[in-house]
């Protein structure tokens, strides 16, 4: 069952001649209880897309339909309030330094749940336990906790309003590898328990493969390939995805595959060439790529690719 549907979403920053087109017509569906991974290099627009879904910035055009309502319209924003939550990359910055851990988790309960203060605190204590933190942290300030513990608090706070969708923007990028694994295990537990969907934004390809049901690959503000995690890694079709996957370092023991290097650099979002955005770097480029804009086409069941060279 579709939880959220994004239709032809675009976002421009800046005005007139200085316009950067960061998102250029993205379509995306997320089912209930599903994890959708978004990968791409820096500047590909994955964070911007996540922020628009969470309602933190407004799209330039397009629709975000959540429970039958277009929440990209400000008037409908109340409908989704508290039901879409976000966990940010850096927990030290995303939590309030001056407020105790407990009150930060209790706040969404109070604001959205319409319950009394003591009930809210009771439930916040419960939440703290759910993310495997000891009760003694309840009255502590964020500066007294480590990065990994703070990220758990951020997850607890996001869960407090019983959301249907959580946008996770690189939730483990600022943490050490050993803590990393623990947070991911926690997220998977939480998903099983609450049945919440994840939009998981990351540039870590091993991570996205192991936790996502479906993965979208973004390049210059468009999803260029979208498939189930297994399909994407085993039957990669788009030339950009191939280059991206080959570039990722492989963990010990695995056979080192030949790297594919794309020539040149990613064009600026202010001057994206007409036609396929990869045309100046692609090994398979031909005339049609410069004359026509490719569309995301389903080439196999559930496998969408935006490339003329792929049949």
């Amino acid at each position: 069952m579709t939880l959220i549907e994004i239709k032809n979403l675009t976002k421009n920053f800046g005005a007139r001649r200085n316009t950067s087109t960061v998102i250029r017509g993205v379509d995306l569906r997320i089912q209930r209880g599903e994890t959708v991974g978004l990968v791409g290099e820096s500047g590909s627009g994955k964070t911007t897309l996540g922020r628009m879904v969470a309602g933190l910035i407004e799209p330039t055009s397009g629709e975000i339909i959540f429970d039958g309502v277009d929440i990209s319209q400000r008037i409908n924003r109340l409908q989704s309030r508290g039901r879409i939550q976000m966990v940010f990359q850096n927990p030290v910055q995303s939590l309030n330094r001056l407020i105790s851990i407990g009150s930060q988790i209790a706040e969404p309960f109070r604001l959205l749940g319409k319950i009394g203060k003591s009930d809210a605190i009771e439930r916040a204590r419960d939440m703290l336990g759910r993310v495997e933190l000891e009760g003694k942290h309840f009255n502590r300030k964020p500066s007294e906790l480590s990065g990994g513990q703070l990220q758990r608090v951020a997850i607890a706070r996001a869960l407090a309003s019983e959301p249907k969708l959580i946008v996770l923007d690189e939730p483990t990028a600022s943490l050490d590898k050993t803590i990393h694994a623990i947070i991911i295990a926690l997220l998977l537990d939480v998903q099983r328990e609450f049945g919440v969907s994840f939009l998981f934004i990351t540039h870590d390809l091993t991570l996205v493969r192991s936790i996502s049901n479906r993965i979208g690959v973004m390049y210059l503000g468009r999803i260029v390939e979208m498939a189930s995690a297994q399909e994407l890694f085993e039957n990669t079709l788009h030339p950009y995805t191939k280059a991206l996957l080959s570039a990722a370092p492989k963990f010990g023991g695995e056979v080192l595959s030949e790297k594919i290097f794309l020539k040149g650099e990613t064009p600026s979002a202010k001057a994206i060439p007409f036609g396929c955005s990869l045309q100046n770097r692609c090994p398979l480029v031909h005339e049609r790529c410069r004359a026509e804009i490719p569309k995301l086409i389903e080439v196999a069941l559930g496998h969408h690719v935006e490339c003329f060279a792929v049949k």
Partner: protein
Amino acid sequence: MLKVDGLSVGIGDQYNSILNNVCFSVDEGEIIGLVGESGSGKTMLSLALMGLLPKPVKLSSGSIIVDGQELVVNESKRVERTPKQLAMVFQNPRNALNPTMRVGLQVRRALVVNQKLGKKEAKLKSLKFMTDVGLPDPEQISKKYPHQLSGGMCQRVVIAMALGCRPRILIADEPTTGLDVTIQAQIFDLIRSVRDETGCSVIFISHDLAAVSELCDRVAVLYRGQLMEMTTRDRLFKNSLHPYTKLLISSVNLNVKPKVMDRGSDYFPNGCRFAHRCPEAVEICVEMPKLRELNTVHSISCHLMNGNTK
């Protein structure tokens, strides 16, 4: 090529709080990986080698031998001055470059200062080094300022500067953190080809096990200033023996929830520095284990390897 023996680094009275009795050696033309979490002392180790330790930090004991010559440690307990045989590439290329100076001039300066070249010669050489690191059209790029170049290009400029010093050992401190994987793969390719062409050794510092397993010949694992295990890449990933290395490797496999203890960092204050999180800690761990050679390619510092078990 490089031999580090019993190196301890600390602040104030705590002579070994940052690095404790670190011993390792690097052969000619070898790429060594140094891995560890944040705060494990990997960057301090490289700064100690370069003589760049920040003010309150002191090199309290140990010797560093580069190319058969021991480095002089001065009264302020630091390596006398940046040894000529060593060059370093820093983590953030944008911060390593001077933002108000054209990059070409920065590469030329490095040559004039280190190689005592004349201006004209330095210009020719700088263009050659910039071509070597794969910068397209070095004439044009040398006229640009760092902010006009992408992160990957800046890192190439920094590597060109390091190469200008003709180092025997290149220290790369997280050279690709903050860069995209596609750029990272290109920089790795570059480090490998630099090694092949100049025959220099590389110390590659990283927190990314996958990156290390791709690039390095041998790997050293650091935890809170203690060298835990050092062995060849293949042995480390297939046959790691230290509980910390095992934890580190298991954390890459996200389908298994790692077994982690936390007894607080004061547990065994003078003992093994991993004891407070070690799932296999035993009583003898109150003593600091010594780095022991199991065989010619595998050293480990853990009491469990000396026949002590639970």
